[in-house]
């Protein structure tokens, strides 16, 4: 492939998804400076591997590279943030006291969510482990399908579903706790 042609094809495939790429990186590392470095590094990798790109879903392709670049960066710079989560089903576990508390208050959750402000939501999502944060962002903000998310995060589709379930549950619990503390 000729270089200029390759470059213009590359730009056409990648540039429209730059916002999504930056948003994902920003949520992974939680600061502007590092997020920009990660997107730049990811784009360099993407360019390098562009000849292997088959012209299918370019957004998912780019986000996969951004996600991997972000994880490499986290491994190197903040290894503690990458605690491996166990993906066993937790449905059968005993009900968490916070959750019970929330249920006992005869469902204030819907109301609480309406009151939740932007800062508060941002905080609780940032406190989730990266493995949950990324599926939440890909599903709720990028509106990707389980299949696409499974591809990007390299996990089975069932795990996408259970991580979303656990991620959302944790968000609800954190919000309830926040409310309790006032």
């Amino acid at each position, binding site marked *: 492939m000729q270089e*200029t042609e390759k470059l213009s094809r590359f730009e056409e495939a990648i540039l429209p998804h730059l916002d999504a790429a930056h948003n994902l990186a920003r949520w992974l590392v939680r600061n502007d400076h590092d997020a920009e470095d990660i997107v730049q590094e990811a784009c360099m990798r993407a360019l390098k591997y562009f000849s292997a790109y088959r012209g299918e879903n370019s957004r998912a392709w780019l986000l996969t590279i951004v996600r991997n670049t972000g994880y490499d960066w986290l491994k190197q710079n903040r290894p503690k943030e990458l605690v491996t989560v166990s993906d066993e089903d937790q449905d059968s576990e005993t009900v968490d006291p916070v959750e019970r508390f929330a249920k006992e208050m005869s469902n204030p959750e819907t109301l609480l969510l*309406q009151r939740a402000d932007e800062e508060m939501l941002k905080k609780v999502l940032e406190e989730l482990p990266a493995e949950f944060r990324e599926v939440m962002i890909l599903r709720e903000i990028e509106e990707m399908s389980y299949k696409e998310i499974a591809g990007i995060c390299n996990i089975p589709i069932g795990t996408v*579903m259970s991580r979303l379930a656990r991620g959302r549950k944790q968000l609800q619990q954190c919000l309830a706790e926040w409310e309790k503390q006032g």
Partner: protein
Amino acid sequence: MTDINNHIEQKLLHGYLDGELDLDRSLDIEGHLRKCQDCSQDYRNLQALRSAIRTKLPYYPAPARLRKRLDSMLRQAAKGDKPQARSIKLWPWMGMGVGASLVLASMVLWSLGTTLWRAPMENVLVGEVLSSHVRSLMANHLTDVISSDSHTVKPWFNGRLDFSPTVKDLVAAGFPLVGGRLDYIDKHQVAALVFSRRQHLINLFTWPANQEKNQRVQNLTQQGYHVIHWTQAGMEYWAVSDLNEQELQEFVRLYQ
């Protein structure tokens, strides 16, 4: 489907919320939600959480300085390029062996014979519409007239086009108007109307059709974008977006 307390398994409720379950399961869950107060409250809470996330969570678009950095990075990469005229590959089989090119040529002839001329024409159009959409997002030239008021956008086209595009007000349905601009597709001046849905943008291109006959809606997906095309009342309509297909279809239904 249900656990020991006779409630829906949590995981499935999330699959249902995300529209990822098969029809049978979805129907089962729908039925259960109608009967079970606990589960339907759980479900409402999940919906509330989702809408809070979608409306209140900050979105971090790529800042201009990052785009600049990437731009210079790409230009650097291009420097390694030999200063050759950019050749457009009109005859992709030119580099192939004779046997392969004969096979390919006969395939091309066969497909030309079986397809009406419309089909390749449409492919070219899809490409044009798609790259207009992409260009409008890349080049920071999304709108010539910025207004969420259809009564401002429609008259703006007067005197700029030889037709008057229909500009609908869909804000109540969650598709606010962003603005409009002039674009050029299929050798026509066309109207591009821009609508938004959350952080997604929809470009709706419209121009007078060659034939009066209404054409049914056609859906296409290319490079992660959805394109929907139809003609109606003598006008061509092309809607393009990275929005999910269902919502783009909803947009089109409302527009028709």
